């Protein structure tokens, strides 16, 4: 493989990695506070892409505004899912909320098929994203410049919220001990809702970046990115925000590199990521940045 092709793949890998980091955070944050895998997360991702689509086609909003609206709607959707599907089961056995999460995932996918239709729709791409830039002999699509920058900006905002604000402190307290967090005067419901909103908002940003890269949107578009981001969150250490960032980055980079270096295995790339996951868990059961 020539250096140029390697660099080209590297730019794809970095960009996809940043994207998975954004999505993986939603899994890890929800797990952190509720010890629940939010299987509907990938479907919130999908819904966000459709929100952009319909905001532009039905309400004729300009692209930028449509993205903003979609992010906000995704946050509302995430919060609603928590209220409807998880909150009533907070004190139930964990398997109940897990089933509820799977059910919610199916519900959103079915809803999307019925209401949006199963046929892929094309997602609008502003010119810059569709363009390919040639740097020396390396060809880099515009979206590869934007994705890492947007991701890093949102990850920095997230880190600020989690590590520097009172709400972030409340989230970190809740992740260790519900009762004691309540004894500090933390409003549990509000903090959990906020966690879902942040996770869903980041998923929406991820979805927009994803759709700019693969501009076909359809009801099952969230399934594979969802699973990969979930895997990434586990590799990084589920519950750890830094872990989700690093895990997401690794999974994105590896997915691209496997395809590039071992083209004959390209079809198995998702299984390959799982093999890596299993190896990580064998040597570090808590994940790369997990606790205990």
């Amino acid at each position, binding site marked *: 493989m020539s250096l140029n092709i390697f660099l080209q793949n590297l730019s794809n890998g970095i960009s996809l990695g940043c994207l998975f980091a954004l999505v993986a955070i939603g899994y890890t944050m929800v797990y952190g506070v509720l010890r629940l895998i939010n299987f509907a997360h990938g479907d919130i991702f999908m819904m966000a892409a459709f929100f952009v689509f319909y905001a532009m086609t039905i309400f004729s909003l300009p692209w930028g505004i449509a993205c903003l609206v979609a992010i906000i709607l995704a946050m509302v959707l995430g919060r609603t899912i928590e209220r409807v599907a998880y909150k009533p089961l907070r004190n139930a056995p964990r398997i109940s909320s897990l089933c509820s999460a799977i059910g919610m995932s199916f519900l959103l996918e079915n809803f999307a098929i019925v209401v949006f239709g199963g046929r892929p729709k094309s997602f609008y791409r502003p010119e810059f994203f569709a363009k390919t830039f040639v740097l020396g002999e390396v060809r880099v699509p515009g979206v590869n410049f934007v994705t890492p920058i947007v991701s890093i900006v949102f990850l920095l905002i997230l880190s600020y919220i989690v590590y520097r604000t009172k709400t972030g*402190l409340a989230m*970190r307290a809740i992740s260790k001990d519900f009762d004691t967090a309540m004894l*500090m*005067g933390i409003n549990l419901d509000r903090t959990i809702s906020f966690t879902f909103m942040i996770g869903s908002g980041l998923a929406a940003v991820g979805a927009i970046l994803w759709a700019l890269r693969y501009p076909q949107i359809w009801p099952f578009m969230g399934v594979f990115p969802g699973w990969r981001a979930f895997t990434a969150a586990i590799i990084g250490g589920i519950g750890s925000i830094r872990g989700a960032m690093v895990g997401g980055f690794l999974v994105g980079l590896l997915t691209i590199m496997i395809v590039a270096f071992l083209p004959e295995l390209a079809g198995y790339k998702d299984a390959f990521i799982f093999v890596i996951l299993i190896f990580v868990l064998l040597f570090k059961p808590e994940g790369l940045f997990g606790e205990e």
Partner: protein
Amino acid sequence: MLKVENLNVYYGGIHALKGISFDVSKGKIITLIGANGAGKSTTLRTICSLVRAKEGKIIFKDKDITNISTDQIVKMGAVLIPEGRRIFPNLTVQENLDLGAFVREDKEEIIKDQEWVCKLFPRLKERLWQKGATLSGGEQQMLAVARGLMSRPKLLMLDEPSLGLAPLLVKEIFEIIQRIHQEGITILLIEQNAFAALKIADYAYVLETGRIVLQGTGEELLRNEEVRKAYLGE
């Protein structure tokens, strides 16, 4: 300040509190003593709304708080330092203290209060940037008390503060409880170390399997034959 009337609580299918009533008047140290499983912790957890009462009433500062959420009760100034310290191991000492002051907005006063608790517990001051998990058991208990104080409570409830501490530290913790009390904070103390608790208590209640079986001033109970036999090991 706090009035508990005919409190009935079921906990995991067990009738844990069978109609208990007691008073905590302002500026006093009140203690509940009793064996393991008598319902002492359940009483405090019910006052804080972590456990819901089936029947009965809890009045705090002339307000019915029986069905109010925990965070509202904390805001009103009733604060529980839970059994087993329960500090946040993943957070620094400073962050633990910040959480204690979570319901407050008066930044300058919070800083003053932190200076005050650092004076009470000089060991914490040296460890503000350490993770909670790295503290020794005694230091964790000090942090739990300091964190409780950071909310500037009117009523401080302590659940077994001396549990698992070395005798010297037990003595220190009881001295600190008295110093906190001198600052004008009303104290509701739960202890298995009945002797130490009764010695500093203005008034005490003895709990047995969810009922109050005996009450009196600390001194009275220290002299009481039954108490001496059952709880003071004589």
